[in-house]
């Protein structure tokens, strides 16, 4: 107790790093003890299995035939990278990621603008917008599967008059129709989340700055592209990073809506099918490692893309 009184508000002082007192040793130890359970759990359930995957990926290893485990080196990787199915699934995943995130950004921004300006029914709006986000992905996928079904869905009966759609359109009959249905279900569920992230960014822009540009004679589109969007770069980056990586992991929607039929498999789906359904743990582990590396690369690219952009924006401004 005496130490706390003797050094009030010392926690924020930078100079304590110079003097390595007993109190700091104690603080250091306490801090490490408090984070230890979280760290141990994270290492045990993610880092260790990931290393295990790295190890298993070097073997031909079928769970149904464990005695026949043989070292193949990078053989699994060579097989996978030479397989057209792997590339098809990767292309599918990238298409789903790019298309859904792009559409979500546009619609989500429009939603955020509405939510930012609205002065009535704010509670109702906030509650409604959380419902698609909170709903179980599997449930949302089922709902959209019914929606697009030939005999029971409302898409064919309501939108049958549109070119390319009729009352007998089979949405699960070919690749692009099925991909469309999957992307609709993904966009429906996650646009509200995007809107919330963008709304948080929008509410941090100072009203004065927007008003000032208005007084200076900026048109609505100039205000949007020159004032509002550049000031939301950080929020947009966070949104693209989170949603992009999330969309890249797409699994639930595809599993429920098509089970991968019509070539709608994603990278995650392929990994799951190899490891769990076909017991090819060696091959599945190699896919796991590749999936993990792809996600890392994506994260790096997204962050780098926005950083470069930010520097440019600063240089111009």
């Amino acid at each position, binding site marked *: 107790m005496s130490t706390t009184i003797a050094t009030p508000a010392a926690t924020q002082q930078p100079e304590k790093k110079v003097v390595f007192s007993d109190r700091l040793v104690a603080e250091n130890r306490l801090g*490490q003890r408090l*984070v230890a359970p979280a760290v141990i759990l994270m290492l045990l359930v993610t880092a260790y299995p990931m290393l295990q995957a790295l190890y298993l990926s070097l073997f031909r290893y079928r769970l149904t035939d464990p005695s026949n485990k043989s070292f193949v080196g990078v053989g699994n990787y060579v097989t996978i990278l030479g397989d057209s199915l792997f590339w098809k699934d990767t292309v599918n995943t990238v298409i789903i990621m790019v298309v859904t995130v792009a559409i979500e950004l546009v619609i989500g921004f429009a939603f955020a603008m*509405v939510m930012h300006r609205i002065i009535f029914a704010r509670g109702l709006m906030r509650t409604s917008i959380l*419902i698609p986000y909170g709903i179980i992905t599997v449930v949302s996928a089922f*709902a959209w599967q019914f929606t697009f079904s030939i005999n029971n869905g409302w898409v064919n009966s309501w939108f049958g008059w549109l070119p390319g759609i009729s009352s007998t359109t089979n949405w699960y009959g070919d690749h692009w129709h099925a991909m469309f249905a999957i992307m609709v279900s993904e966009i429906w569920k996650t646009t509200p989340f995007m809107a919330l992230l963008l709304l948080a960014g929008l509410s941090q822009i100072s009203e004065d700055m927007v008003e000032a540009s208005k007084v200076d004679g900026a048109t609505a589109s100039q205000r949007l592209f020159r004032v509002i969007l550049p000031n939301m770069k950080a929020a947009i980056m966070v949104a693209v990073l989170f949603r992009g990586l999330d969309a890249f992991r797409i699994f639930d929607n595809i599993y429920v809506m098509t089970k991968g039929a019509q070539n709608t498999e994603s990278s995650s789906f392929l*990994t799951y099918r*190899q490891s769990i359904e076909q017991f090819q743990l060696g091959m599945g582990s190699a896919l796991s490692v590749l*999936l993990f590396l792809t996600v890392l690369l994506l994260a790096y690219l997204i962050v780098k893309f926005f950083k470069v952009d930010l520097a440019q924006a600063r240089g111009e401004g």
Partner: protein
Amino acid sequence: MKKSGIGTWVGFVLIMVWCLLPVAWIVSLSFKSLQETSTGSPQFLPKHATWDNYKVLLGMTADKSSSHDFLAALRNSFGISIIATFLAVIIATLAAYAIARLEFKGKRLVLSMALAIAMFPVVALVGPLFDMWRTFHLFNTWPGLIIPYMTFTLPLAIWTLSAFFREIPWEMEQAAQVDGATSWQAFRKVIVPLAAPGVFTAAILTFFFAWNEFVLSLSLTSTTASRTVPAQMSFFVGPDPFNPPYSQLATASVIVTVPVIVIVLLFQRKIVAGLTSGAVKG
């Protein structure tokens, strides 16, 4: 800027339709009879609304065969989600307190590790976890799902909580001590009430994750001893794969969505704050 013009009104209506129409559609589907959906029923409202699907799924009819698996899965979902939430929040609170409040070696490492895990493709772990859990006899058990659910929600909980803890005026604790409170009293009477809303928000987000999780439940369980509702629903196809029991699936969907809607209705303000605080202030 703050005015509601005609555009805002139109936007409001569009957002409401976007969020609620598909939900209204599942609710409507859940009141259609099995006969109606098996012959094809594209109209929005049921021809003859019926409670039959709810009665069958909740075990209120003589035939318990279809309710048994669903109710078991519902029990697993509740048990596993609540236990995982409880444990994850305790562990995350300790870690977030240390991160927000204390200086220690490895702090940045913990935060970057949490970030890496938040981005982790969960499906990349199902193979090795499947293998590990069979060795440790955790396959198809409650702990077998609780442990990974805790782990995967820790990053979000730690980020949300440490963003929240940083806002707490910790000097008040010392002020209370100067006024004669013991350090435990100061912590309990001053800090705990201030920290409670943040802890609560983290708990809601964790519960959402566990309630929603699909791929681990699908991979790490084999029977209704531990399978949760999302995975159970994917097995719920009925005798004819080309004609699944649409209305019963819709009913199951409504039943598992009700807890989520109730939580959203009660705590919408906190959920929005929690979702955005970690991301924006992070």
